[in-house]
């Protein structure tokens, strides 16, 4: 529901970071989104086109890396990936776990630019 405000924040952050690379064009922005981040990939991509219009990010690609939930299982003494978000139990031994190690991420991982210095 709030994907537009999220991508607007992405555009602001990347635009700010871009100040260190004057004249460069953004080709791609890479996000990391956890399975429990409560956002929809398609909606992010749809909003991205709108949010980047008229900005230095216009025409760039948005890539979303979806991260599964990882819990720590005390019994197995290991971090274990869950196959979905319908049960927070260790898939190996069945022990329930509230110790979330991955799955809530909502972050800008990186962005790709054309390299102006080499181009010259």
């Amino acid at each position, binding site marked *: 529901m709030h994907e537009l405000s*999220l991508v607007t924040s992405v555009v602001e*952050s990347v635009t700010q970071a871009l100040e260190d690379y004057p004249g*460069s064009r953004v080709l791609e922005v890479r996000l990391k989104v956890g399975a429990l981040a*409560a956002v929809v990939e398609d909606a992010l991509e749809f909003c991205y086109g709108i949010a980047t219009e008229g900005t230095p990010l216009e025409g760039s690609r948005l890539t979303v890396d979806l991260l599964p939930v990882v819990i720590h299982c005390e019994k197995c003494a290991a971090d274990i990936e869950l196959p979905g978000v319908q049960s927070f139990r260790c898939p190996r031994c069945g022990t329930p776990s509230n110790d979330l190690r991955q799955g809530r991420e909502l972050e800008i991982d990186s962005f790709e630019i054309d*390299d102006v210095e080499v181009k010259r």
Partner: protein
Amino acid sequence: MTTRIVELRRGILKKNDELAAGLRNRYSGAGVMVLNLVSSPGTGKTSFLERTLRELAARGSRVAALVGDLETDNDARRLAASGAPVRQINTHGICHLDAEMIGKNLDEWNGVALDRLDYLFIENVGNLVCPSSYDLGEKTRVALLSVTEGEDKPLKYPAMFNSADVAVITKIDLAEACDFDRATTIRNINEIRPGIRIFETSAKTGAGMKEWVEYLRERRA
């Protein structure tokens, strides 16, 4: 053309998270316990909260509430009947409350000082999706669902139920009328948030409210 990858590794909600951390410090400095109530529209958050405010006040606690809705101040007026200070936040279309809205409303709330409160309740916008991502600096996130909503709600909205500290089942006075499957509901909640404390309440009859209020008093202590 050669290209270059710039690592950023920045949280998209970093600004909200920072503001929420500031609020958390502010709450703990003032000694007020803050709770964030989240549910679908129509679960009965307002009725549950009104009864909670009354019961806590009757036991000598100082309580107040911030209530979020897209439009209208109907909920604030209903809650104000409890006698507690209540402030409405209208988000005008935004699907959740965020830390900035809370900070601003606390600053502008004349006559209400956090250090003179024992409990501050934040009734979020009725929505089981977006509010799960927005930290309001609360100590306790309370996810509510009513007996009329269906046993699989926790499975349908795992992000919210997994982020909750407490679950409250509301309208249990209607359980029989809607063939409420208690065992399945509790099992589903536990599948998503193992071991979470669950209260079964009715704001109408008062059932379960005593246990809930005692829990609040223990958790604050």
